[in-house]
C-alpha cells in the first residue's frame, strides 16, 4: 500500500481525501496556499506544506511547486481531487515521470476524454448513442450551419475543450447560430486556450443522468449506480440524487454503456459517464469525467461504500476486493451543494463565519472544511459544504433534507440554504424528473 499521499487540493475535497487516507492508515500531506493557512485540512493533515500565494495559478495550479512539495515530503502518490489539476493530462504525466502514482486514470485517458469531440466520436464508434451533431470540430460558420440544417434546430455549440457545463451556446435557428458562432469560438479560446467548437442537437427537455464507475486497471470495472444531476444553474450542478427516477430498462442500458466506455478506454480509478436522457428515455452519452466528482457522496450513501478509499487502494496496485454483486444500491440519497453566495443573486459572499452549526442525527452526512470562526478567503470557489441526506426512500430523504437544512445555522456569510429549502418546497421537484433547465425557470 502507498504510505504517503500528497493532496493537491483544498477545501472539502482535500478533507475528504484526508479522511480516506486516515482510515487506510496512509499518511496525508496537504499542500496549501498562504490564504489557506488556517484551513481545516491544514490543521488535520499529518503534514501541511505551503506552496505559494493565494492565487490558484501560483499555488494549486503551480505544478512545479506541487511536484517539489511531493519530492521534499517523499510522497508516493498524488490525489488531485476535482478542479485545479485533476483533469490535466500533463500533470498526470509529470507525476508518473517523477515516480509518483497519480490517483486517477492514465494520462491518455484523461487526454482523450478531455477532448469532448474526439471522445464523442470514439464512444459512438463503440455503439454507444451520442447526440446527433458534427463528426468533429467545426471550423467555420458555414460548416456549423450545414450540420445544424442536417440534424435540425435547436443546436448547441460546445467548446471541444470545455466540460462541466462550461463553454456552451444555444442557437434556436439559423439567425441565432450566425449571431453566436464567433462569440462562442472566442469564449472557448479565452476560457480553455483552444477555440475549437462542435455542434450538437439540443435535446430538450432532457435530464442529466450519470453513472459512477470504478475500475482497477486489471479488467475489473464496477458500476456504482446512477445519479440524477438535473438540478442545475448555468450548467452547474446544484443538487444531486441517487438513484434516479428512471425505468429499470433504462438503468440497465446506462450501466451497460457506462461499463462499455470504461472498458474500451482502459479506465482506471473512479470516473463518471454522463448521459442526457430525453422524455422517451432515450439516452445519449455526453462526456466522461475522469476524476472523483463533487457529488460522489450520494453514491457512497446508497451503496455504503467508500469511493475515495477504493481510488487509493487501486493506485496502490491493490486489485478490487469488491465484486459487482457487492455494490447494492439501497434507499435514497440527496446532496445539497451549499455555496457561500447570496441565494438569489448568486453573488459570492466570503467573510468570517460567525456561527456554524451543522445538522446531525440519522441519515445526515456533512462534508465541509468550514468551522465557526473561519475566515473564508475570496480566492476560490464558493462551495462551503455538501449536505447529504439518506432515507429509506425518496420521500424520507426529502423530509430529512428539509429538516437538516432547517437546522443548518450559518451567520457571517450568506449561503444557498434558502434556495435548497425552496427547491424542496416545490411540488414539481417533489414529483421528480425535473429537466436540466427546470431550476433556471424556478420562481421562489
Amino acid at each position: 500500500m502507498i504510505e504517503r499521499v500528497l493532496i493537491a487540493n483544498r477545501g472539502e475535497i482535500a478533507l475528504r481525501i484526508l479522511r480516506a487516507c486516515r482510515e487506510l492508515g496512509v499518511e496525508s500531506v496537504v499542500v496549501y496556499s498562504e490564504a489557506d493557512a488556517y484551513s481545516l485540512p491544514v490543521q488535520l493533515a499529518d503534514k501541511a506544506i505551503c506552496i505559494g500565494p493565494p492565487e490558484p495559478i501560483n499555488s494549486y495550479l503551480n505544478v512545479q511547486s506541487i511536484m517539489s512539495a511531493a519530492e521534499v515530503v517523499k510522497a508516493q502518490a498524488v490525489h488531485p481531487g476535482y478542479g485545479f489539476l485533476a483533469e490535466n493530462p500533463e500533470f498526470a504525466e509529470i507525476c508518473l515521470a517523477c515516480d509518483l502514482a497519480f490517483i486517477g486514470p492514465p494520462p491518455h485517458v484523461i487526454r482523450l476524454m478531455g477532448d469532448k469531440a474526439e471522445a464523442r466520436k470514439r464512444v459512438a464508434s463503440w455503439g454507444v448513442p451520442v447526440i446527433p451533431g458534427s463528426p468533429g470540430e467545426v471550423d467555420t460558420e458555414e460548416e456549423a450551419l450545414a450540420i445544424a440544417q442536417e440534424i435540425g434546430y435547436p443546436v448547441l455549440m460546445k467548446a471541444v475543450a470545455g466540460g462541466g457545463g462550461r463553454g456552451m451556446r444555444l442557437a434556436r435557428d439559423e439567425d441565432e447560430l450566425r449571431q453566436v458562432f464567433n462569440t462562442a469560438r472566442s469564449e472557448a479560446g479565452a476560457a480553455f486556450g483552444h477555440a475549437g467548437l462542435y455542434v450538437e442537437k439540443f435535446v430538450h427537455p432532457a435530464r442529466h443522468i450519470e453513472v459512477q464507475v470504478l475500475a482497477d486497471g486489471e479488467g475489473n470495472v464496477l458500476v456504482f449506480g446512477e445519479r440524477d444531476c438535473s438540478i442545475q444553474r448555468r450548467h452547474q450542478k446544484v443538487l444531486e440524487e441517487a438513484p434516479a427516477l428512471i425505468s429499470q430498462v433504462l438503468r440497465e442500458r446506462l450501466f451497460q454503456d457506462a461499463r462499455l466506455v470504461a472498458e474500451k478506454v482502459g479506465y482506471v480509478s473512479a470516473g463518471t459517464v454522463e448521459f442526457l436522457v430525453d422524455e422517451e428515455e432515450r439516452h445519449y452519452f455526453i462526456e466522461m469525467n475522469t476524476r472523483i466528482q463533487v457529488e460522489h457522496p450520494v453514491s457512497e450513501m446508497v451503496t455504503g461504500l467508500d469511493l475515495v478509499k477504493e481510488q487509493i487502494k487501486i493506485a496502490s496496485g491493490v486489485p478490487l476486493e469488491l465484486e459487482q454483486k457487492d455494490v447494492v444500491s439501497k434507499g435514497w440519497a440527496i446532496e445539497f451543494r451549499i455555496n457561500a453566495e447570496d441565494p438569489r443573486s448568486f453573488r459570492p459572499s466570503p467573510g468570517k463565519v460567525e456561527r456554524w452549526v451543522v445538522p446531525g442525527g440519522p441519515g445526515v452526512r456533512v462534508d465541509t472544511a468550514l468551522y465557526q470562526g473561519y475566515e473564508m478567503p475570496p480566492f476560490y470557489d464558493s462551495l462551503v459544504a455538501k449536505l447529504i441526506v439518506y432515507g429509506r426512500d425518496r420521500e424520507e430523504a426529502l423530509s430529512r433534507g428539509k429538516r437538516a437544512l432547517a437546522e443548518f445555522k450559518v451567520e457571517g456569510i450568506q449561503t444557498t440554504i434558502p434556495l435548497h429549502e425552496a427547491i424542496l418546497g416545490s411540488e414539481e421537484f417533489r414529483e421528480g424528473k425535473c429537466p436540466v433547465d427546470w431550476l433556471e425557470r424556478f420562481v421562489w
Partner: protein
Amino acid sequence: MDIKDLLELVKELADLPVGELELEIDGVKLKLKKAGVQPVAERVETPAQSVATPSLQPVSPTQDGTPQFPPDAVVIRSPIVGTFYRAPSPESPPYVDIGDVVEKGQTLCIIEAMKIMNEIESEVRGEILDILAENAEPVEYGQPLFLVRPLS
C-alpha cells in the same frame, strides 16, 4: 465566629461558584476573593480579538516566527518549495555564515526543487543575523531562511 468556622467557610466557598464575599459578623469583617477567578466585568474589558482568531494554530513554520524578529531586520523567505542547501556541494564551504556581510544579489543558499538548483540571492546589502532553516531540510513557500540587518 472562630477560626475553625472561618476555615470551614473558606473551604466550602472554594467549591462553590462564588467569586467574592464580604462579611461583617460579630465584629468580624471578612473580605474574600477567589484565586484565579476573574470578575466578569473585567473580562469584558480584555481585547475581544482573542475570540476572533482560530484557536488551533497551523503547524506550518510560516506562521510562527514573525513576531520575534527585530523590527529593523529583513527576513529573506523561500520563494519556492524545495530542499535548502547552505553550500553548492557537500564539500564546499557554506555560501554565508552568521555575522557575514552580504551584498545585494549575493547568493545566500540553494533551494533544490525537482533536481534543479535554484540560487537564492540577497535582496539587500546587510549583515546575516541568523540562519533560520537547517541544511538539507525541506522548506516550504514563504518559510523564513535568513535574518539580515540592512546596511547602507
